């Protein structure tokens, strides 16, 4: 990712692609990064096919479902990808990965990131942020998760009682805080 110098060949990896977010901000992104988003890739390739006059790098790709704040974070995640993709073998590595996942903000931010990654069809990102959100939810009591994420417990009291009974084994040994 270090070749920022000017390259005479526009189709090389330093070529830039411009993305336009829902709040009309323009992002100039390296092609290699942008191609990780399959939705962008698809658009880009279709565009190339249609427009043989090939001003590929100057086309602006609109992303009406992605806010600039979210896109900026996705791009910064994308640039860090290579090292975070290493497989975690042992406990220690798993812990560092967990910490790394924690850096991506509040659960609310994560929901936005997941939503955007899903729209952009960005697989690695989706996996990563899904795991980060799963980290947030697990080991928390039902009440906590409901409150934290604004989920409305819409069961009748007797229904909830029944379902809790059904999954009693899952609640054995869970600290109620």
């Amino acid at each position: 990712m270090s070749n920022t110098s000017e390259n005479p060949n526009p189709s090389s990896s330093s070529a830039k692609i411009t993305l336009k977010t829902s709040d009309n901000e323009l992002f100039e992104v390296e092609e290699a990064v942008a191609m990780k988003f399959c939705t962008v890739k698809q658009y880009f390739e279709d565009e190339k096919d249609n427009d043989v006059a090939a001003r590929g790098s100057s086309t602006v790709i609109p992303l009406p479902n992605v806010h600039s704040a979210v896109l900026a974070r996705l791009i910064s995640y994308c640039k860090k990808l290579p090292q975070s993709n290493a497989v975690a073998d042992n406990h220690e590595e798993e812990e560092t990965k967990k910490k790394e996942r924690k850096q991506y903000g509040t659960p609310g931010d994560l929901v936005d990131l997941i939503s955007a990654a899903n729209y952009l069809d960005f697989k690695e990102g989706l996996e990563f942020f899904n795991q980060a959100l799963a980290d947030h939810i697990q080991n928390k009591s039902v009440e906590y998760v409901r409150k934290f994420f604004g989920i409305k417990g819409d069961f009748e009291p007797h229904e909830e009682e029944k379902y809790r009974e059904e999954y009693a084994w899952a609640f054995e040994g869970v600290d109620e805080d």
Partner: protein
Amino acid sequence: MKKSYFQFQAQQTQEFARHREAEAEKETTRVRGRLFERVTLHPLDYAAVAMSLLNLKNRCDKTNNFPDDQFSKLPDEILVSIVSLMPLKEASQTSILSHRWRYLRTFTNGSLDFDCSALLNLLGIEKYCEKRKGWVNGVLRLHQGSTIDELRACSVVSDKNFTLDIENWLSFLLRKKVKRFALECKGLRNCDYQQYTLTDQFLCNYGLDSLTVLCLTYVQVTEKALLYVLSNCPFLEVLSVECLDSLQNLKPSGPLVGLRNVAISTSYYAHVARILLGNVPNLVEASYAGLYAFFLLRERDQMPSYLSLLETLSLVLTWQRISQFSRFPILRNLRHLNLTLLVMDVKSLLGCTSLLVAFPILHRFVVDLMG
């Protein structure tokens, strides 16, 4: 005429309200009351009334779909994949969150790890037995995903139906193309029930080509069943079984390229090591106990051909045996050696030095003394 229009609208609202919960309904009644007040005040104000109705509808929709629910932005598929990433226990807890979450968990393809040992310790064996059934069966019955990656469970050999349970689980899992299956049966101390025996007659009804890990503890496997597994699981990497027969005739047809980790124990002392492992070129971890270990060492001259990639070796030997061998076969890739010595009295571990010569890149050497 104007009035009937409002009545019609109000009727619709009423219908709509019937489908909602008590809370939303209360609000409807409240707003509706206000609305009629308004009609009497300004009978001609269509727009305002239409707006109120619209607001009312929106408000009702929102009560259905809690406005602050962060997850409302995400489609169900995403939630399913998030739930898939959690351990079974945590995933199951999410089904209590709300109606939307109730069955999400059942669509996962991930791992179903019934973390038995922890629960067994917590509940004690009797209470555990009682609960276990409904529990595993319940989860499997509700499972909607097309495949299951992994199931880890343990069963207690305690009642007459346990054979049926195990077969039910197995057939369900094999139909769902399970990749990793580990089952640990536990015997009760004061209980004479036989171990479950896995036969080829049972297995041959199912395709096994998805299996990569098969670990069965306290379950016996017939020789034919073992052979069936070995010849029908092209992607098998880890195999750990207890075998019932002597394994004299066990000759897998082709080399078992994928297999990396094998533990087969049997009550007979056939030359399993050579017969079976001769065909496992990529084996990296092996453990031998009792007479196997003895045979392994006795046939050391042939050994390098089939254990040359071995990285981890566990041996259980008596002290006398180990001192009988002055020369160990050389294993150039061995990094971990776990040696369990059955001893009466050991004065010095000097006898182990020959081991260290045989394994040039040994990183870890663990000696356990038992006796």
